[in-house]
């Protein structure tokens, strides 16, 4: 028999889902990132047009989500490295909270810089 949602509903599993989903979404974003950088190769004007386009509020909002994804993936990765390489303590759940806190702080700082 296979287990369902009830077996998986605990903080560490959610951390795993966030880490995996943010990783996949960031990987999907990478081609767009390289394409944007590639515009610079074709001259200043092309990049400038793109950068002006990216000043729109909706794009900025999407960028905030991107910053959140990056922060979540980074903080989640640091958490995993600490779990696997440092001497084990009973603070796994505190690490989870710290990772979530770092993620939110990074997103908020980015948003504050915008407005």
């Amino acid at each position, binding site marked *: 028999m296979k*287990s369902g949602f009830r077996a998986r509903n605990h903080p560490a599993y959610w951390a795993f889902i966030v880490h995996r989903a943010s990783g996949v979404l960031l990987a999907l974003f990478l081609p767009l990132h390289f394409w944007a950088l590639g515009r610079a190769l074709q001259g200043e004007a092309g990049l400038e047009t793109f950068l002006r386009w990216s000043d729109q509020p909706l794009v900025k909002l999407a960028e905030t989500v991107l910053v959140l994804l990056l922060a979540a993936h980074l903080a989640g990765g640091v958490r995993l490295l600490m*779990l696997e390489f440092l001497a084990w303590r009973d603070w796994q759940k505190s690490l989870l909270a710290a990772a979530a806190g770092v993620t939110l702080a990074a997103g908020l700082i980015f948003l504050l810089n915008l407005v």
Partner: protein
Amino acid sequence: MAASPKLTVSVWRGMESGRFQAFEVPRLESQTVLDVVTYIQRHLDPTLAYRFACRVGMCGSCAMTVNGQARWTCRTHVDKVAAHDRLEVAPLHNLPVVRDLVTDMSPFFDKWARAHGRFRGTRTREDDFARVPPDAPQRLLADAAIECIGCGVCYSSCDIVAWNPDYLGPAALNRAWTLVNDVRDGGNRERLAAIAGDAGCHACHTLMSCTERCPKQLSPTASIAGLKRAAMVAALKGGI
């Protein structure tokens, strides 16, 4: 507390394919899930198959899936798990179902053997006792993981086992970690080689379901992390 006098219990009947059968069981004070299953078998349907032995959380034979989560049923109070006086009892996940609530534990224990879970002594009967100070660092690491009763709750809760049926699983790796830290044991080279493979400790994604569900509050995740480091050090030194 004004508990309702009846408990509605859905119990898995059949093998891999089967269905849930509903029973009404009297609700009693301090009742455990194992008490409920036993009541059904003794009073309502003697054909119900389930497994238990000690009833006091020592033998590890009564683990089942209760309301979707693997648990030791003898030490799980109905109060704690039966929301709205409803219980759903099913066999453990990730193991072949023999019948009703009984799973075939052979794959689980075969993996203990594959993980070299057996002590390999280096002394003979002519030698003196090995003296291991209780506060020695390795002894403390082994102590933290030694109380496993082999109930299979962690194995049943582990997604990696579901994804890769060859994966040794949290309990077997936890056992290997206690032996890696046993200074009297002489089989670590082979043991680390056995647990460092594709289906060994490095397959763990640190989902921590084993740690979350272990009824003995052990942390197989910590043991597996220890094995990952031990295997890495052994590989760097050319030991495996």
